[in-house]
C-alpha cells in the first residue's frame, strides 16, 4: 500500500535506481517508490531534476512547506488523467453564474452542516443549542444568496460563531481561540487550525490529482492567479470533521501542550516535534474507515475525499446532482 511520506529532516532527496533515497547527516534511508503515494517536505531538502523526472513517471506529487510549516507550493507532475470533456464542463460550470453559485452554495452548506455535527459532539446538556440554531439559520439563508461573495460572507459569519465555541471544546485552560488569525497565527489554537488546514488542502489536492478534474478551477473559491482552488472548496466539507476534531482530541489528550509552540516573527508556530505528532494523528485519521452506503463497503476518509471529487465530476457531467458528504 502506497502511503504519504513526510520529511522533517534536512538533507538531499534523490533517485537511487528504483527507490527514492533520503540522505541526511544521520545516514541514508531508502524509500521504495511503489510505497510512496505523495511526499510532503518540511525540512530543508535539496532535490534535482532526475528525481523530479522519476516522480513524474510514477505520478507522485510533492508538497513543500517552509520552516514555519506554511504551504509553499506543489510539484505537480504532468497531468495523467486529463479529460478534455471534464475540463471544459468544469469551466462551463464556473463561467455560468447560476451553475457556479449552486455548487458554491453546496460547498458552504456541507461545511456548515459538518460544523453543526462537530458542535453536537460537545453539546452536553444542550449548552451549545443556541449556537447550533444560529448556524442553522445561516444555512437557511444560503438559498437567498445571489452571489458567491454573499455566500462567503454568510459562511464567514457562521464560522465566527463556531470559532467562539472552540475554547469550550478544549479542556485545557492554556488555549484560547479569540479571533481567527493567519499569516502568521497569533495564538496556539490558530496555529493548529492553520497547520491542519494546509495539511488537508494538500491532501485534497493529491486526491484530485487522481481524478479527471482540474484543481485550478474552483467554484466557491475564485479562480485566479493560476492557483489551486478546487482543493480549497472540497476541503471546506472536511475541515470540521477531520482537522477541527483532531485539534480538540490532541489538546484534550494532552498530546499537544502550550510548550509545543514557539514565537516567530509576528506570531506563533508549532515546534517540529508537535508537527510530527500532529501529522501522525492526521494520517491515522485519514485511514479511519466508515461505511459507505453507495459503495456498500467501508472506505477511509482519504477515499471519501476522492469520492467527493468524483461526485463533482458527475455533477458537471449532469449525471447526478452533487450532495456534500455529511459526517
Amino acid at each position: 500500500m502506497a502511503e504519504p511520506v513526510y520529511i522533517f529532516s534536512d538533507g538531499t532527496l534523490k533517485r537511487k535506481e528504483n527507490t527514492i533515497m533520503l540522505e541526511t547527516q544521520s545516514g541514508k534511508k531508502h524509500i521504495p517508490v511503489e510505497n510512496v503515494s505523495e511526499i510532503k517536505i518540511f525540512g530543508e531538502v535539496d532535490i534535482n531534476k532526475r528525481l523530479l523526472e522519476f516522480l513524474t513517471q510514477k505520478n507522485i506529487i510533492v508538497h513543500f512547506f517552509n520552516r514555519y510549516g506554511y504551504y509553499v507550493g506543489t510539484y505537480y507532475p504532468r497531468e495523467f488523467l486529463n479529460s478534455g470533456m471534464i475540463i471544459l464542463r468544469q469551466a462551463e460550470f464556473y463561467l455560468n453564474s447560476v451553475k457556479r453559485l449552486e455548487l458554491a452554495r453546496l460547498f458552504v452548506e456541507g461545511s456548515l452542516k459538518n460544523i453543526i455535527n462537530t458542535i453536537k459532539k460537545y453539546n452536553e446538556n444542550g449548552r451549545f443549542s443556541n449556537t447550533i440554531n444560529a448556524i442553522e439559520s445561516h444555512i437557511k439563508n444560503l438559498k437567498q444568496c445571489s452571489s458567491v461573495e454573499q455566500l462567503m460572507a454568510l459562511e464567514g459569519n457562521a464560522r465566527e460563531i463556531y470559532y467562539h465555541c472552540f475554547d469550550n471544546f478544549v479542556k485545557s485552560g492554556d488555549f484560547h481561540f479569540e479571533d481567527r488569525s493567519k499569516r502568521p497565527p497569533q495564538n496556539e489554537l490558530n496555529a493548529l487550525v492553520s497547520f491542519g488546514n494546509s495539511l488537508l488542502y494538500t491532501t485534497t489536492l493529491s486526491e484530485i490529482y487522481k481524478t479527471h478534474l482540474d484543481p485550478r478551477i474552483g467554484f466557491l473559491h475564485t479562480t485566479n492567479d493560476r492557483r489551486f482552488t478546487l482543493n480549497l472548496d472540497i476541503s471546506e466539507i472536511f475541515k470540521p470533521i477531520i482537522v477541527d476534531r483532531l485539534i480538540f482530541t490532541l489538546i484534550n489528550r494532552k498530546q499537544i501542550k502550550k510548550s509545543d509552540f514557539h514565537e516567530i516573527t509576528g506570531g506563533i508556530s508549532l515546534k517540529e516535534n508537535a508537527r510530527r505528532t500532529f501529522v501522525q494523528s492526521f494520517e491515522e485519521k485519514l485511514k479511519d474507515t466508515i461505511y459507505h452506503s453507495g459503495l456498500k463497503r467501508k472506505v477511509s476518509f482519504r477515499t471519501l475525499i476522492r469520492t467527493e471529487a468524483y461526485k463533482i465530476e458527475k455533477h458537471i457531467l449532469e449525471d447526478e446532482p452533487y450532495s456534500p458528504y455529511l459526517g
Partner: protein
Amino acid sequence: MSKMITGTVLLSFTVCEREAWLIAHQIEPEQSNPFIEIGRLIHAESYRKNQIREIALPGIKIDMIYSQGQVTVVGEIKKSSKFLKGARLQLLYYLSELKKRGVHAAGKIMIPKEKKQIDINLDDQGIKDLNQAIENVEKLVSLPKIPQKIRNAFCTKCGYEQFCWS
C-alpha cells in the same frame, strides 16, 4: 470532443455501457485499482520472448505481433477468459483496421494464467458481428449524457467503481 471507437471501448461495451461511454470520452478509470494493476503486470511479464510487442495506432493497442510461418499473428493478452465476447470484438476490430492498412493477420486471445490461446479470424461472421457492435457503440457514445449506472457483478472490480457509486 473526439469520441473514438477503440478496441477497449468495444470490449467494455459488452460488460457495461456506462464504462464504454466513459472510456470513449477519455474519462479514464482509477489507475490504482488493484485489478488494473494486476492486468498491467500480466501484460508486462507474459510472453517476453516474442519479438514484437505493443504496437499503438489510433484506437488500437496491440499487445503482441509476430509471424508464425507465413501468417502474421496479433495477440491480445487477457487475465482470464471472463470477457471472451468482448475480447473477440476487440481483436476483430484490430484485424479489420490492419486489413484497411494492407496487413492481413490472424488473431489470438492469449490467457497465460489459464494456458489458453483462442484463434480469432476475420471471417464473414466476424465482420458481421464487428459491424453490428461498432454500430451499437457509435450510437452509445454519441449520447450527450453518461448512461445510467447499473450494478452488475463486475462493479466491485471495476476502476470506475468509486466514480459510479460514490
